[in-house]
């Protein structure tokens, strides 16, 4: 019984990829034993305070380069966590992160109104 459950779980976990919203998230799927190079993106972020002031956020100064790369690739879990983290500062109303990528991904903006769990994603332009 235990064996059957363990084998079934191993079969089912990779299939969860088909239901994942984030196609870049290939964990536990065996899709690749050598992850492909991520698209190069330029990331910028800004926050808006309740008093209406806007402030640019220097992403590179705040987190490790590997996280910057994840954010640049648009890994949703990391983007959402990063935006939520910026909301922890006092007086922040909303945070926005923009990824300008060279490849097919184009420019994507993630906007989080503080207090929310998940950022709203907008594809602003796409180079085809």
């Amino acid at each position: 019984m235990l064996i059957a459950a363990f084998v079934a779980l191993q079969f089912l976990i990779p299939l969860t990829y088909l239901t994942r919203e984030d196609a870049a998230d290939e964990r536990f799927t065996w899709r690749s034993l050598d992850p492909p190079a991520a698209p190069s993106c330029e990331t910028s972020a800004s926050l808006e305070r309740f008093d209406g002031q806007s402030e640019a956020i220097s992403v590179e100064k705040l987190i490790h380069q590997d996280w910057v790369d994840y954010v640049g690739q648009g890994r949703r879990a990391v983007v959402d966590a990063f935006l939520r983290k910026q909301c922890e500062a006092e007086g922040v109303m909303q945070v926005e992160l923009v990824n300008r990528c060279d490849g097919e991904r184009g420019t994507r903006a993630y906007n989080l109104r503080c207090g929310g769990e998940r950022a709203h994603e907008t594809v602003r332009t796409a180079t085809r």
Partner: protein
Amino acid sequence: MKPLERYWFGDVALARPYLVLRFVLGLLAFDTWLNMMPHGSKYGVGAFNVAHFPWFDTFVPSSAFYLGVLAFTGVLALSQALYRPHRIAIVLIAAGYTLGWSCSLLDSVPYHYLLSLYLLCFVFFPMLSARAAFSRSDRAPRGSVAAYVLFCVTTAIMYFYVAAWSAAEGQSYWLPMACCVAYLIASMQDRAELPALRMAAPLLAAAPVAFHLLAPQQGWLPIYMIGIALVVFAPTQWLHSFGRTLTRPARRLVEERSEGGIDERASQVFYLSLLGLVVAPMVSMFVDMPGVKTGCTLTAIAMLFVMGRQLYFTPRWRPLWRVASLFGGCLALWITVTASNARFDYYHEGAVDADRRGDDDAAMMFREKADRYAP
């Protein structure tokens, strides 16, 4: 017996689970020290972290935590590879290793997940001594080891998905599919009623060996998988001879000691074991990386827990061998870190990132150490 029961519970040569367990544990120790520890400085930067699983999300692992977990896992793994493994120790290794990679997306190496699955299988492996796995006669001991079959099936599932995704993308998939089939049938090769399979199985090793030599992969995955393939597919007699040669010194030592016989509990064994448990983690003081001392101390505590009643009630040298294996693990960690670039890489990476973030104090601290340990 039904066919499915025969598949899972049929005989396998005990040399296979014995050697697979020790090979993976030994390699895992050096893998954590040489390939994972150098990236430890990434952890805790900016108090930001995203874990692999949501229940970890509020936890931000520091680099000391990460290195401590890796030191603990590596030393315990090597000590179990050196001397007869203990199930509790394997549970702790599986937990430590899985915690190591799963606490952060910073470690997203695909095969670390595979190793966690392997460690979970190992928990249910028979904890064989060299004498049990390699008898004195030329006949290789066999027995039913469902966990070993599960280990092979786990490997087969991994290859199956590599093949399936490749097929879905229109790429060549026959080689990983051949690996999948090979692993599914390899676990049956030691059964007396299947002599034809016994003849053919060693040839099947060509599939995984070729796949891991040809396909691009991350880290030490090819070393793990080629080593595992050699153990899983090798002819029983070869494996038996190899294992006997490999374990001869250890078996001779144990046999001599048994004959010499401390038949009643000798107090010096008890005190020597305790002294060893205290002294062994002290080796880690020379490693000079955050968290390593704590990790090694925890390994000694884990070893004490593993030995449990054995430490006091076993009327033989077994506790001393366990402590000696812990010593071996701690010494190997120290030698590996000092003889390789692992420690320099850790401090160098930390300095580069701190510089980039404009954290001058951290950069200076990292640079000072990086200069000290520069190759």
